[in-house]
């Protein structure tokens, strides 16, 4: 029973990070039809931002804010430098552009800083544990889940309550008509990238806190998982991305925790099979986007 509760906390904690990343991917995709595989590198950049801030002996909360700010800046710069010139290109071209951006950033870090991970030590209170009777839960998991809930809540408020959020939701459905309303396309796109950057930055903080190091390839695996989550949730659906993230996290954690020892090496294969199975049952995803966009 205690183990089940602990694994549930683990699943929420991991799923939450995937949800943040998947939501960032989906936000950008819903507006510019770009599956941004360089999203993982935004996370990596945020990680190095935290590392750099700690090297400058800034206090941990400042370093964390710096990491998120760096991620927003990186996402905006990526949009301005790499993706804006490609605006209107087809999905494949955009996808390949994002791979190119991703590779360039990885190599810059590998050759500019180090191919090896750099250690990051966050405050001790983050690494303490909470005793709940028979169950001991890591503070970091709790903080992680709380941060995800806050970030998702803030995102929902932004989308529901602000004019720009309204424009973003509308743009996800029909970008051309949003422009006919006089709303500047560049502002909406930039906002989408800024939001995705902020979410990736928060994900990076949680990731780094749990892993203790940053390396040039840090973002690659999580962004792949987040991509799977967005497809599972329904490509282009923001709610679907969040749901997909939590499902992918739960599948991974529960398989890791409850598969018999002999089957453990096949965990990834089993986990992907479950996701493919879900997609066979629901080809448009668990929570499809409301409208298919018109061309």
């Amino acid at each position, binding site marked *: 029973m205690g183990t089940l509760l602990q694994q549930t906390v683990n699943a929420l904690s991991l799923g939450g990070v995937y949800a943040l990343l998947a939501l960032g991917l989906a936000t950008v995709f819903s507006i510019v039809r770009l599956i941004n595989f360089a999203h993982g590198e935004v996370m990596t950049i945020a990680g190095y931002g935290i590392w750099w801030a700690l090297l400058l002996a800034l206090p941990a909360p400042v370093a964390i804010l710096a990491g998120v700010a760096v991620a927003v800046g990186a996402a905006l710069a990526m949009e301005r430098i790499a993706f804006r010139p490609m605006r209107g290109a087809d999905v494949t071209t955009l996808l390949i552009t994002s791979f190119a951006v991703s590779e360039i950033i990885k190599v810059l870090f590998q050759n500019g800083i180090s191919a090896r991970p750099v250690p990051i030590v966050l405050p001790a209170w983050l690494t303490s544990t909470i005793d709940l009777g028979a169950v001991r839960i890591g503070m970091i998991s709790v903080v992680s889940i709380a941060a995800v809930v806050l970030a998702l809540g803030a995102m929902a408020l932004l989308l529901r309550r602000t*004019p720009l959020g*309204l*424009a973003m*939701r*509308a743009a996800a*459905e*029909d970008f*051309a*008509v*949003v*422009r*006919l*309303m*006089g*709303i*500047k*396309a560049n502002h909406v796109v930039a906002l989408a990238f800024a939001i995705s950057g902020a979410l990736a930055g928060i994900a990076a903080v949680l990731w780094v806190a749990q892993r203790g190091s940053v390396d040039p390839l840090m973002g690659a695996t999580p962004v792949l998982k987040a991509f799977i989550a967005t497809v599972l949730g329904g490509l282009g659906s923001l709610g679907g991305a969040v749901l997909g993230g939590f499902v992918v996290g739960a599948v991974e954690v529960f398989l890791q925790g409850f598969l018999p020892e002999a089957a453990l090496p096949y965990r990834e294969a089993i986990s992907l099979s479950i996701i493919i199975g879900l997609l066979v049952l629901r080809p448009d995803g668990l929570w499809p986007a*409301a*409208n298919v966009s*018109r061309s």
Partner: protein
Amino acid sequence: MNRLSVTGLRVRYGPIEAVRGLDLEVGPGEIVALLGANGAGKTSTLSAIAGLVPPSGGRILLDGEDVTGLPAEALARRGVGLVPEGRRVFASLTVAENLLLGGAVHAPPPERRARLRRMEDRFPVLGERRDQKAGLLSGGEQQMLAIARVLMAAPRLLLMDEPSLGLAPQMVERVFDLIAQLRSEGLTILLVEQNVPMSLDIANHGVVLANGRVSLRGTARDLLASDAVRGAYLAG
């Protein structure tokens, strides 16, 4: 001065030229009906005037100001409103959100609220359904919403692309009544329609397109009487 003055407009999609040197004028407070068969270049013309596609040639003047090649958002801010073909309301947004978005950049929040109330008075069905998702409205209600959404911007030139398409007959009449009423309020309208008799019935002038060029133009009354229009659109 004409509200809209288009000279030598050309629109090209890759190798295909959809509009080939079109001249068009719309005076203030006028309805001009843009007619023609499918593929004649009507929607391309509207898209170019609204800034959704850049013209490959020609000039577009709005109240004498050259606005050729400006992007859609800039034209919208200058008072060009388009009711797009197929309505294209934001299905996952509520009715009120659709309307507020229509006035988002044109009016400060208090004024936007006031306009929203006026629209809800004018279109009671939208007031009743203000918190429903627009995707749940009927086709006719969505068309009303699409028109009300543009009116939120208080445009000086209203472009309408097939507003009666796919609507039930009595709804079609309501739409045409509304268009005529909007003119009587002083709005300038460029109307693209398949329904030639009803369009010419409310229009001041008509322009018939064929293969991207003007094949016929005149007052609505003359066109209604012309053999060419009767033969092509009013036969049977």
